[in-house]
C-alpha cells in the first residue's frame, strides 16, 4: 500500500465520496472508482484497491446494500446502492466536513481577515 496516497485523504473521506457517488444511483466498484476520478478531474488519484475495504465498512454499517448484477461491459459484478441510513450519514458527514473546511480556510488565510 502506498503511504503517501493514504495520507492525502483524511479518515472517512473515501467513504463520504462513495456515498455521494451512490446518491446518483446504484453502481459497481469499478464505476465508483471511475466516477470519483473523473469528477475530481484526476486531482484525486486514489489507489483503486482501497475502495474495497471502504465498501466493506459501509456494508457493515448498513449504509449501502449490495446485489449481483451485470456491468455495462457485460461482466458479472456486485452493484452497490445507498440506503436510507446511508443518506442520513452522508448529510451528517457533509455538514461536519463543511465546518472543517471553513475552519481550515480561516486558519490558512489569516492575513485577509
Amino acid at each position: 500500500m502506498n503511504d503517501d496516497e493514504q495520507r492525502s485523504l483524511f479518515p472517512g473521506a473515501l467513504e463520504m465520496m462513495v456515498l455521494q457517488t451512490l446518491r446518483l444511483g446504484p453502481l459497481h466498484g469499478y464505476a465508483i472508482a471511475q466516477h470519483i476520478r473523473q469528477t475530481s478531474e484526476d486531482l484525486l488519484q486514489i489507489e483503486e484497491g482501497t475502495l474495497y475495504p471502504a465498501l466493506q465498512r459501509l456494508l457493515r454499517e448498513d449504509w449501502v446494500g449490495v446485489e449481483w448484477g451485470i456491468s455495462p461491459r457485460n461482466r458479472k459484478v456486485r452493484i452497490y446502492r445507498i440506503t436510507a441510513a446511508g443518506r442520513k450519514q452522508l448529510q451528517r458527514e457533509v455538514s461536519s466536513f463543511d465546518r472543517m473546511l471553513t475552519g481550515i480556510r480561516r486558519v490558512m488565510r489569516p492575513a485577509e481577515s
Partner: protein
Amino acid sequence: MSRFGQLFRRRRLDSELAQEIAAHIEEKADELAEAGMSREKALLAARARFGNSTAVLEQSREVWSFAAVESLLRDLRISARGLRRTPLFTAVAVATLALGIGADAAIFSLMDAVLLRPLPFPQADRIVVLWERPPKTVKTASLGSRNQQNPASPANFLDWRDRTRSFDRMAAISVFPMGLSGFGEPREVDALQVSASFFRILGVRPLLGRAFDMSEDVPHGPRVVVLGFGLWQRQFGGDRTVIGRTVRLHDEPYTILGVMPERFDLPFAHADLLVPIQIARGMDSDEGRYLNVIAKLKPGVSMARAQADLSAVARQISVERPYVSRDWDAGVVSLYEQTTGEISTALLLLFGAVTFVLLIAAVNVANLLLMRGTGRQREIALRAALGASRSRIAIQLLAESLLLSIAGAALGVALAFAGLRAIVVSLPALALPRIEGLQVDARVLAFSVVLCLGSTFLFGLVPALAFSRTDPDEALKQGGLRGASRGHRRMRGLLVVAEVAVSLVLLVGAGLLGRSFLNQTGVSRGFRTDQILTMRMFFAPARYYDDHRRARYLDQILARVRALPGVAAASSAHFLPMVGVVSGSGFHRMDQPEPARARGRAPITSL
C-alpha cells in the same frame, strides 16, 4: 446482515470479494486496451493501479470483526508448527519461563494466603490485640519487644477491661503446656487459658457441645475444657461421645464441654485445648506480665480513639502501682497488623525478588527469540513482500511468544503447586501465620494468566517490533547472508545490559539479606551450645504445690540424669536462656526501708 451470519458465510464473502476484484482489474484492462495498449501491458498497468490485491482482500476481511480472531487462530497454528520444528529452542524458552512464572505464582499464593485474604473471623476489622508498652529504659525479652509489645499482667488487664469505654469485650489469653492424662497415652498438650468472652470476640462456635460462659470463668470455678479439633482427632479418635466425659489435666479432673471446629487457630498461638482462665483481683502473683489480650472495638470506634482511651487507663495504673508500672504505656494493634506485620515486609521483598527473576527470564527469552528471528529474516521479508502489513507480522511473532508463555505458565503453575507443598512441609508450625490457608486456587491461576500475558508482551514485543521493521528489499537482496543487522545486534546488546542490571539488583539484595542474617546468627551467646541438650517438664500444681517438695523431686531427677553414662553435668532452670521469656522478681536494698507493699505481698521493682 448479522455478523454471526457473516461468520458462516465467510468463504462466500471471500470468493465474492476475489471475483469482484478480478472483475475490477479486467474492466480497467479493457479500458486501457481500448485506448490502444496491448492486452498484456494493459493488465499489468491495471494491476499496478489497483495496488496489492492480497492486502486489499485482507483489509476488507478485517472490516468484519471475526477476521481478527480468525487470523490470530491461524497465527497460533503456524507458530505451533514452527515451535515444534525447533524443539531445543522451545524447551529452553518454556523451561526458562516456567521457572520465572512458577516462582512468582508460588510467592503470590503465599502472599495471598498470608496478607490478602481476610482473617477468618466475622468483623475481623474490629478485633484488636492489646499490649503493654514498657518504658524505653526497660529491656524486655518478650517476643514482640521489637514493636514495644509486652504481655499484660492480670491486674492491668482487669483495669483495662473495667475502665476503658472503647471495647465491647476484652479477653485474656495465656498459653502454657499441661499434662493430659486419663484418656489414652498421657502427653503434654498446648493449653490456652482464655476468658469466656474469647469465643464471642472471635465469633467462633464449637463444632460439638458448647464453649464455657461467664459463670464458669470465675475464680475457683468449675474445671471445664474445650478440645481442639486436632487433639480430639488424635487422642480421642474423633469420638462424638466425649462431651461430658472427664479427662485429667495437671492431674485434676476436667469435664469436656465441647470440641472446636477444624482449622481454628489463633494467628499467634496454637491450641490443643482451651480452659477458662478464671482470673480475679487479688489473686496471687497478679502483677507478672504473661497475658495476651484481645478485644473487640465497639462499632464506629476508631483505632486512634481506642488507643487514647487505653493510654489514659495505663497512665492511671502507672500512678496507682508505680512499683511495677511506672512509665508503662499500653498499645492497640489490629489483629490483621499483628498477624501480618513483620512478615509482610519479608514477603513483599521476596515477591519483588521473584518478580526480578521473572524479568530476567523474560529478557532471556526475548534474546532467544531475537536470535531465532535473525535466522528467519528471509521468511519474514518474503511475507512482507507478499503484502503482509507490519502489524500482521508483529502479531504473528507475538502469537509465537504467546504460545511460549502459555506453555511456560502451565508448567510454572505445576511447579508452583509442587513447590508450595515443599514449602509448607518444610516450615515449622506458625513460622508463617495463616499458612494453613495456602492453596493454588482460582486467584492464583488468574494471577498466573496475568503474568503469562504480561511476560508475552515483555519478551515478545521487542523481537516483534524489531523484525516487523524488516525491509523486504534489503533482506531478500542479502540472500543467504544470515548475519544479524546492526540494529538487531544493538537491541540484543541493550537486552543483555538490562539483564545484567536486573541481576545485579537481585545479587546485591541477596547479599545484603545474607549479610544481615549472618549478623544475627553470628552474635556470640557467651557460651558454647554444642554438646548441650535441653528438655522441659511441668509439675502438676496439685501434686507439687509446695516448693520444697518440688525441689526434692527435681534433685532426684537431676541425680538420676547425672548418673546416666555420657552425661557430664546436669542442671535445671526456670526458663532457658534466650527463649524469649524471662521471669522477674522484686528486691530492695536492705539498708533502705522496704517500699510500700501492694496488698500485703512482696513488692516488685521495675528496673
